[in-house]
């Protein structure tokens, strides 16, 4: 006999959680009103967000897209009964000038060239950025792209980039020939020398000769015509693309056992990091002009590109050195015990891990470089901020501030935010956390 009157033999079906714990209400209870302090903070935040939106949204919603000047904007707003300094935005200025803000003074009939250059940039970057989703044969195009990019933007004869490419081919041919018959080091030295001889001496004759045989080319666009976001992106892309390899070399050089290489790298990095970018830009724009012989036409954008690249390379080197320092000693020893030589060890074992660790730092350096490109407005190049000044100097638009700077800020945000999201995607993909 048992006293137990009742034993349940089957499980109860699961009940819905209480309404106060799930759904929107539950989420709000947990995240917004989980205690009286948090509730007060939430209400205060909502109040402030509302106040800001209340002021900003009516300002943004302003039917002034077709206005031709600031006074026309004011008339339109006046007719709507909206008065005051912040009655509404004057979007006419964006309508009239957005193309200029993007392309600068580039000839309108040639807009397809920068567009093509940046679309192809995406194609060239795809095998690098999304290695798992794109056929790796595209890498050939990525290798050729550095020669296509300047040709599309600046134009000129097609033999220029071909000749620059041939320089690499000549160097490589000399290297393989010599390193097979004689020593590898001699091959490297002679190969580099052969490339330099090609670029410095033979190239101009080659270009001239080929040009007289078959003059294939597109219209030349001078650097002075570059402006707006096109200029920013050009400087940003070139600086980013060149600074990563340069930074890797510098970081390795800093860790090298060879004294001269080491102190050259340390000296370069510390010097560049000790000098503000603005100073380097002033050197590029004014000091170089005074040192170079009069009449030298050393392209201003090229000077800026070199300076920005060197600047970001120094920072990149330190970011990558951080990655190298984070690798345990055993990785180096493991590579040695496998009998790998220095470059094999770097390529197969050290760099893949060091770069993976450094991704957040590398990307934030990239973003920093891209934003730093606006500093060129100080030396008189018309990047978006420089153009903003120029546009505001138009008698029609003088007095407009927020609309232009807001537009520029929005575009910069889009670029920088996408870079940051890509870096997060890459980190997730590579699991850099070692979890």
């Amino acid at each position: 006999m048992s006293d137990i009157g009742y034993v349940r033999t089957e499980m109860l079906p699961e009940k819905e959680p209480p309404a106060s714990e799930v759904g929107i209400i539950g989420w709000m209870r947990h995240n917004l009103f989980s205690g009286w302090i948090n509730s007060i903070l939430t209400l205060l935040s909502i109040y402030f967000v509302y106040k800001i939106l209340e002021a900003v949204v009516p300002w943004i919603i302003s039917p002034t897209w077709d206005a031709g000047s600031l006074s026309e904007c004011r008339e339109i707003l006046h007719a709507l009964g909206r008065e005051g300094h912040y009655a509404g935005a004057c979007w006419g200025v964006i309508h009239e000038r957005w193309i200029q803000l993007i392309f600068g003074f580039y000839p309108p009939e040639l807009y397809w060239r920068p567009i093509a250059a940046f679309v192809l940039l995406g194609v060239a970057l795809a095998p690098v950025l999304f290695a798992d989703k794109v056929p790796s044969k595209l890498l050939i195009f990525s290798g050729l792209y550095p020669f296509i990019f300047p040709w599309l933007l600046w134009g000129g004869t097609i033999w220029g980039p071909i000749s620059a490419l041939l320089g690499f081919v000549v160097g490589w041919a000399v290297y393989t020939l010599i390193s097979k018959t004689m020593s590898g080091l001699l091959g490297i030295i002679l190969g580099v020398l052969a490339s330099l001889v090609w670029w410095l001496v033979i190239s101009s004759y080659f270009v001239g000769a080929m040009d007289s045989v078959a003059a294939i080319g597109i219209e030349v666009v001078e650097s002075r015509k570059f402006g707006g976001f096109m200029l920013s992106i050009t400087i940003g892309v070139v600086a980013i693309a060149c600074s990563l390899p340069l930074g890797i070399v510098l970081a390795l050089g800093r860790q090298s056992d060879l004294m001269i290489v080491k102190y050259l790298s340390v000296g370069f990095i510390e010097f560049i990091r000790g000098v503000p970018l603005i100073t380097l830009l002033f050197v590029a724009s004014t000091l170089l002009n005074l040192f170079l012989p009069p009449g030298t036409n050393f392209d201003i954008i090229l000077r800026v590109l070199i300076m920005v690249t060197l600047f970001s390379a120094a920072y990149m080197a330190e970011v990558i050195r951080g990655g190298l320092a984070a690798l345990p000693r055993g990785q180096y020893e493991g590579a040695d015990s496998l009998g790998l030589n220095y470059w094999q060890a770097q390529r197969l074992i050290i760099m893949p891990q060091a770069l993976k660790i450094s991704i957040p730092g590398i990307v934030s350096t990239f973003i920093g470089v891209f934003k730093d490109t606006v500093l060129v407005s100080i030396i008189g190049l018309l990047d978006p901020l420089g153009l903003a000044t120029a546009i505001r100097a138009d008698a029609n638009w003088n007095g407009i501030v927020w609309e232009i700077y807001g537009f520029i800020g929005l575009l910069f945000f889009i670029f920088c935010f996408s870079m940051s999201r890509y870096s997060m995607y890459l980190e997730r993909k590579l699991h850099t956390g070692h979890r």
Partner: protein
Amino acid sequence: MKKSVILGAATIAGLAAGAAAAGTVDDVKARGKLNCGVTTGLVGFAAPDANGEWQGFDVAVCRAVAAAVLGDANAVEFVPTTGKTRFTALASGEVDMLARNTTWTFSRDVDLKFEFTGVNYYDGQGFMVPKSLGVSSAKELDGATVCIQTGTTTELNLADFFRSNNISYEPVPIETNAEAQQQYLAGACDVYTTDASGLAATRATFENPGDHVLLPEIISKEPLGPLVRHGDHEWGDVVRWTLNALVSAEELGITSANIDEMAAGTDNPEVNRLLGSEGTLGEMLGLDAEWAKRAVKAGGNYGEVFAKNIGEETPIGLARGLNAQWTEGGLLYSPPFR
């Protein structure tokens, strides 16, 4: 990058450096383009329009010189320069001339080794205050907060003025004119001081320009003019007399409308000499006979350029004032063409 092109160019440039000491006139003619330094943007004086064409009062000087030397008012490469880069750009030969609202001062002329080729605008530092302040003279500004651009001569002029009048002020340092407009409208300062032309242009952009007044005191002399490198006198003469030609054309009644008619020959020998139907002035300058005719045709005489870009019909609305002809009580006085 185009390494070969760059290095090649640098090498050639190095070799050519010795030979490149020829005069700027010849350089410009050989290049077929005038490199003219302008501001990166100043209302009425230089700004690109929506099509990327530069317009403005200083720009007109560049175009006139290009028309005189090259025969084409559009054969100008405008090089935007900032206050910090303008002088090195000129000294290094990056630009052939500056037409960039630059004040003619002793040290710039003598110490920096430039040559001012005349004055195309007589400016001076003024004050703007809200009407509601009830001030009618700058001497009543005791204790006022003043918005002032840092690192400019206006800052020093302001200090001098207040000290000599034994009154005090509180400076509100600002960096750019745009910032000044915002600060002034927001009431961060009682007074905004800068060049009078800049004040007028700024006031014209306000929602209610009538609520603000420019005080009568002008506390400094700011003669703005084009400049060239010291030592190249042939080129300096070309720029100087192109500017003089614009001024003289107004004085002699030559406008872009009647210039063709007058160039055919008139009873006034100076007009004939200026426009090349008489005498050999162009030849003396190293140009052809019709140089001045083209310069005036490019944008009109001085008065037309003034009226089109900054005059009373424009939103900026500057009166001629000091910039009227000497016959009308102003300071414009071109030496005679003979």
